[in-house]
């Protein structure tokens, strides 16, 4: 027994000393880096136990993800092709790479020729590196042979074979971190780097200085020659030499997906494929989710349960007037009664019982009117709590989920980069490149969500143009549904006029923005990943985390927006807007005075504005004018606040003011011509 104890003690001591040794030797900062779409995030998830975005569209991991592995900090960088300061993603990655103790460089074994450029640069920077040769299963499928031992020998660092998607080789990750070391780099280059070390005292910074990186030249006030092209070409040649020694290729190809990829790029087949994809998306998001699912969540769960029970609870304690309508099958009012509770429903339980019996098992509409401003502010028609929660959970959540699901599916299949290539020329004409298609498509779902997605664009100029277009001309799905119903009652002529005006405004405003916003948009240079069938687990994880991220980021702003509207209502400023807009609405737009209410409501929620037009007795021409104005009119309060956050107050206010002016101006011109 004693012997056993002593042996246990001995083991514990050994373990402890081993742990101490481990924590002394174990790196403090581990950075996972590699080209876009090589499986970095899966490796990060495995090590940190957290989820990071995993996508098949180059460049979607815009921000850094950090986690813990043992006692070390582990960082997942955006996908980069090299370390420098060419764009935001590289700048972000550059800084963490410079500070890393160990770099786990994930490379796509199928595209070694592309990926080894970064590997060699990391080695030349003098960083401690281990290489994860990922997608090794795909290499075998494609009949390519890679001699990883030889690769390790030539690079001078450890190379581990993995298939991140199948978690093959993950048992080597810990070893990869521990065995990371400096690799072999060119002697001539090394001697040049040595000379520069007295300027910036690190090999990594010296290399970037030698490569003419502007950030470092400015930082160290270095005016020496720029060897970037020479270094890049030498590095490329070295990649070629390495490939010649380590890779032998077969001929087998993924025939079906490679053919599909081609078809997506050819306009004759690509445009019908795009229409097919958009039609499927429309039926899924626009019809199934926006109509049926949201119809159920918003009306049944939101209004009949959440809002009714919340307001009923508040009504117990405060002066409340309850307007109850019993509706027929066609939603016409069959009967109406007003129940007055001057001291709250608690003080008159019989009347409350009477009300419950009155609505029991009947189609009904119950409106609570609180007399005091505070409960009105929190739980009234635009109550900060009731309206925001209803809006967020029962309208926006299903829509955002559906859109992110579609986007994740398209991304992971490799379709989106091909679509970006297909539409590039059209977008170039308005100062954008093909990548801008993503936020624009998302805008038809939710402008707020799309405004956040403009972050994926590489320049401020593109972000400004796309944000302005989203806020000005792109109607969100909630608004589209109301517009579609109103247009269908107005007939074909109305549809043609409406579409022509909106399309012309879209083209004209894009062209004007292209001229006005300074700078140039970068040309399209896009790596096209292979087409493949998306993995359901990845698509669903991505959808979940993106939706969660969006809700977490946007939700507080919806509350802020609702509070703003509540204050406007309480201070009668809403009434002021209403009165201020009335003459413009009546004289210039030639619409009834009540239409100004629709515009004011449009500031809160775009579909509220459009829906307000339902009850007015408008002529066909008036419907067209009203719809044009409300489409171009300022965005909903949530996207307005998000726009201010993304683009800054000055630019946001400019876009917002222009939307006001041009919505009325264009609507007015159409009205003067038509009516």
């Amino acid at each position: 027994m004693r012997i056993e104890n002593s042996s246990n003690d001995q083991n514990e001591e050994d373990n402890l000393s081993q742990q101490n040794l481990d924590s002394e030797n174990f790196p403090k900062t581990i950075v996972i880096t590699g080209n876009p779409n090589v499986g970095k995030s899966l490796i990060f998830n495995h090590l940190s136990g957290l989820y990071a975005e995993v996508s098949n569209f180059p460049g979607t991991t815009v921000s850094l993800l950090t986690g813990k592995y043992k006692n070390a900090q582990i960082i997942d960088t955006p996908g980069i092709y090299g370390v420098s300061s060419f764009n935001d993603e590289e700048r972000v990655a550059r800084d963490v790479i410079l500070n890393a103790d160990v770099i786990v460089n994930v490379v796509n074994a199928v595209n070694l020729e592309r990926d080894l450029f970064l590997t060699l640069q990391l080695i030349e920077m003098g960083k401690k590196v281990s290489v994860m040769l990922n997608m090794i299963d795909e290499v075998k499928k494609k009949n390519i042979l890679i001699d990883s031992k030889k690769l390790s020998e030539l690079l001078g660092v450890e190379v581990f074979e993995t298939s991140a998607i199948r978690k093959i080789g993950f048992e080597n990750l810990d070893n990869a971190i521990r065995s990371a070391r400096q690799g072999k780099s060119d002697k001539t280059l090394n001697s040049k780097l040595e000379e520069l070390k007295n300027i910036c005292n690190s090999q990594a910074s010296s290399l970037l200085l030698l490569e003419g990186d502007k950030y470092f030249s400015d930082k160290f006030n270095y005016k020496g020659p720029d060897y970037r092209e020479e270094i890049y070409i030498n590095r490329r040649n070295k990649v070629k030499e390495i490939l010649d020694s380590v890779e032998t290729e077969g001929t087998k190809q993924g025939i079906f997906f490679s053919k599909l990829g081609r078809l997506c790029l050819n306009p004759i087949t690509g445009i019908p494929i795009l229409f097919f994809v958009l039609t499927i998306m429309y039926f899924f998001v626009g019809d199934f989710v926006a109509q049926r699912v949201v119809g159920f969540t918003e009306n049944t769960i939101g209004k009949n349960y959440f809002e009714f029970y919340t307001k009923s609870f508040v009504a117990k304690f405060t002066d409340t007037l309850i307007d109850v309508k019993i509706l027929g099958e066609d939603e016409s009012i069959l009967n109406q009664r007003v129940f007055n509770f001057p001291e709250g429903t608690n003080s008159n339980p019989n009347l409350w019982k009477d009300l419950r019996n009155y609505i029991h098992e009947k189609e009904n509409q119950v409106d609570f009117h609180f007399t005091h401003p505070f409960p009105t502010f929190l739980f009234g028609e635009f109550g900060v709590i009731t309206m925001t929660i209803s809006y967020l959970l029962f309208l926006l959540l299903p829509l955002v989920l559906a859109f992110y699901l579609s986007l994740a599916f398209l991304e992971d299949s490799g379709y989106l980069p091909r679509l970006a290539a297909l539409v590039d020329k059209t977008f170039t004409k308005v100062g954008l490149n093909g990548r801008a298609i993503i936020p624009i498509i998302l805008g038809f779902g939710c402008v707020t969500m799309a405004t956040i997605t403009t972050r994926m664009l590489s320049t401020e100029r593109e972000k400004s143009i796309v944000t302005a277009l989203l806020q000005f001309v792109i109607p969100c799905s909630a608004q589209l549904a109301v517009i579609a119903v109103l247009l269908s009652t107005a007939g074909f002529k109305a549809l043609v006029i409406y579409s022509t005006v909106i399309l012309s405004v879209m083209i004209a405003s894009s062209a004007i923005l292209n001229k006005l916003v300074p700078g140039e948009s970068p040309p399209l240079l896009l790596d096209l990943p292979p087409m493949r069938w998306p993995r359901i687990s990845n698509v669903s994880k991505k959808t979940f985390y993106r939706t969660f991220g969006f809700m977490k980021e946007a939700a507080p702003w919806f509350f802020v927006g609702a509070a703003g509207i509540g204050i406007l209502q309480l201070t009668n400023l809403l009434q002021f807007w209403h009165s201020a807009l009335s003459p413009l609405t009546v004289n210039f737009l030639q619409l009834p005075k009540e239409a100004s209410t629709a515009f004011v409501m449009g500031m809160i929620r775009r579909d509220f504005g459009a829906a307000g037009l339902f009850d007015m007795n408008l002529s066909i021409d008036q419907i067209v004018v009203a719809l044009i104005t409300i489409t171009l009119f300022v965005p909903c309060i949530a996207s307005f606040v998000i726009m201010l956050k993304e683009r800054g107050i000055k630019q946001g206010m400019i876009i917002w003011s222009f939307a006001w002016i041009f919505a009325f101006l264009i609507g007015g011109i159409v009205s003067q011509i038509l009516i």
Partner: protein
Amino acid sequence: MSFTLDKAAPGQNLVISFLPNGVIKSQLIRFGICEGERVRCMDRIFGGTVILQKNRLEIALGYDLAKSITVTNEN
């Protein structure tokens, strides 16, 4: 005979003879598109976007970029 990449026909094997200077050149070199390098024009799509193939890598280049790159036919 040299010509600009936007005029390349799908299926044509090409040698890059000139790349525009600046950041875009460095980005192209990273993808292995260097002067003297062999590539294949996989497709030229609507509006002039060119799809190049370099071994297993497929890269889309916008029309303006393709116009600024000079290539020759591979012998």
